[in-house]
């Protein structure tokens, strides 16, 4: 065996942060691809007259109403989740255990509220997944995002367990957790614009 000169102790590695970034890139591309297909269907739809005789794309069926208030509440809730996750990071860096607990708890609460908001939107739109092309695509995209929010909540639970388990010096998991919620919110911004605003 060839002997090479020994090395000093390795510098701290940001393994979880890099891994979360890579996963974030993957899920961003996942939704990018799905929204691109949505956009293509919308662009290829024929024109029809909308409100005020304005010509619009005949993609969303006439009778389908998407309630924008709960949609905007969902958007706002996700932003709140990011703020709470960042609050946990702020507290973790100051070794303030009780405020880390508060931050993670509020992130979980806002995450659950976001899930509730999405379920409420589905209930209010009163459309079935088999009703048409728009409806199937609507459930496919929003349903996939729903799954992603559940993953975010699982991440919150894991981060909380690790912190409460005594790894209070490990800020990286709290930081990576916050990064994941930022990525979720960025993705929802695109979903909000493409699916809910331009429809």
């Amino acid at each position, binding site marked *: 065996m060839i002997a090479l000169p020994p*090395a000093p102790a390795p510098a701290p590695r940001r393994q979880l942060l890099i891994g979360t970034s890579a996963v974030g890139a993957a899920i961003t591309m996942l939704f990018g691809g799905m929204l691109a297909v949505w956009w293509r269907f919308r662009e290829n739809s024929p024109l029809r007259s909308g409100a005020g005789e304005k010509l619009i794309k005949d993609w969303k069926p006439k009778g389908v109403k998407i309630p924008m208030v709960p949609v905007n509440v969902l958007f706002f809730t996700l932003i709140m989740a990011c703020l709470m996750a960042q609050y946990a990071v702020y507290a973790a860096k100051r070794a303030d255990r009780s405020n880390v607990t508060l931050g993670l708890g509020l992130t979980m609460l806002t995450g659950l509220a976001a899930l509730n908001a999405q379920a409420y939107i589905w209930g209010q739109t009163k459309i079935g997944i088999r009703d048409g092309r728009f409806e199937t695509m609507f459930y496919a995209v929003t349903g996939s995002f729903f799954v992603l929010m559940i993953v975010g909540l699982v991440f919150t639970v894991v981060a909380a367990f690790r912190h409460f388990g005594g790894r209070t010096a490990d800020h990286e998991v709290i930081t990576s957790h916050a990064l994941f919620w930022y990525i979720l919110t960025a993705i929802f911004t695109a979903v909000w614009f493409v699916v809910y605003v331009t429809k």
Partner: protein
Amino acid sequence: MTTIDNRPEAVSSALAEAADDAGRAIHGVASWATTADHKRIGRAFMVAALVMGAAALIVGALLGIERLNADDAVLQANSIGQLFSLHRVGMLYLVAMPLLLGLGLAVAPLQIGSRSLSFGRTAALGFWAWLMGSILVIVAFIGNGGPGGGDADMVDLFLMGLALALIGMVAASVSLVTTVLISRAPGMTLGRTPALAWSSLVGGVANILVLPVVIGVLVLLSIDHQYGRLVFGGNAGILDWMSWAISQPASFIAVVPALGAAADVVITASGRRHPQRGGVLVGVGVFSVAMLGAVTQVTHDLPWSGSSIGDKIKNVLPFALFNLLPILGAVIVLGMVALALKGGKPRLSAGFVFSLTGLIVIVGGVVAHALAPIVDLQLAGTTYDEGVFTAVTSGGLLVGLGAIAHWGPKLWGRKIGDKQLLPLALLGFVGADLGALALAVAGFQGQPAMTAGGFDYKFSPQLLNGIAMAGSALVALVVVLFGLLALKSFTSGEAAGDDPWDGQTLEWATSSPPPANNFSDLHTVSSAEPLLDLKPARSNA
């Protein structure tokens, strides 16, 4: 006690031995099933991919036989379209991509001086997800569930199985990319990273960015197929929506690690420092621009005659960006490999011959692809695209075999017989070339792709399809024989020693096979060829 009774102590000793054997077997299976060791995960990927490779190539040969005479059908008419899809999906996502991903997982951490893989359990989960997904895909095809298949449940199974397999490869890629980014030995900058580790990083990033787009399409197709089939046209529309994912330039993504692996093997065989090593890294990076073409989910065609100058310029830009830039990258790597060989006398190992010939086949396929989008040549929808696909995936497979011949001794401590492998390498080169060239020529004659009959052109269809079939069968034979030789080497091959090829990079500084944590000590690296620094007699050669 009678004379025929065994003595109690002999019986208990035999029972204890049997129990020990069973215990060892159970422990062996359990340790493989739950391992987070990158060497084991990588080997598992490679072995499974080679088994599936032999099957996919045999399917290719059967389709070739079917094309010889459509009237005398070997296969059922309704299964032919699905088998063409299976061949493509299989060669790309069940063979070439996992084989080279597994190679990266097994070797790249050793090359960069890392003691372990980041997120080792994620990588292991990725392997099992890929394996389960691949099995589901195969089961679905057998049950008439491929794209356009007649059994709706099996079509659902196909879509979910493929999505699961791709999720597995994304998970393994995340693990590999993180490892190369953060676990390099002190002093090993990205510029000093060995070519295979670098190309594994670039290929892993490409997988992370491209495969989720395919997964997204599969999710949409799956939901639509289960609920109403109003959006994508049911079973018949599946191939239309995912054809970009089993064609060029998406197939280029799978072979990104092959460029680095081939370059590493050739540079080691040359026995000298590469004068322009950075060029290899640049070439691999430029080649990976192919991922841009893949994620746009469309073919960037180039209509020429009949269009205005303004339109020509407008069309040339995306054509050049998505189709010509990858060629530049591949040609740079080939040029760098030629530079490594210039004026020297390389060691003619089987790994070297496999890798060099595989690289030539890949570059040939990538260069040939530039013609496919030119609308005036009327190659769209012909077997020309199949020829390019065959060249790229078969080339990737050959480089993968070469890499196993080269790094196998490091991974399991025994050499594969060079004398037996060298003819296989040449046979594989001939087979890959015959298969690809015959299909490309048939494409120029206008032979439609993905069908086995109805050919109407002057140049003998039987001859071209016969050559293509023979090429596919030859490569299948090479994979099977290679697998048998590798198995023999694993059980009774000649001991390899720690540095059998007079290597230049860190993986040759540890024992063969490496211990659980790869290196007993961490090393400081001060050049791209840390082992050559310790071999002064050859470092300036």
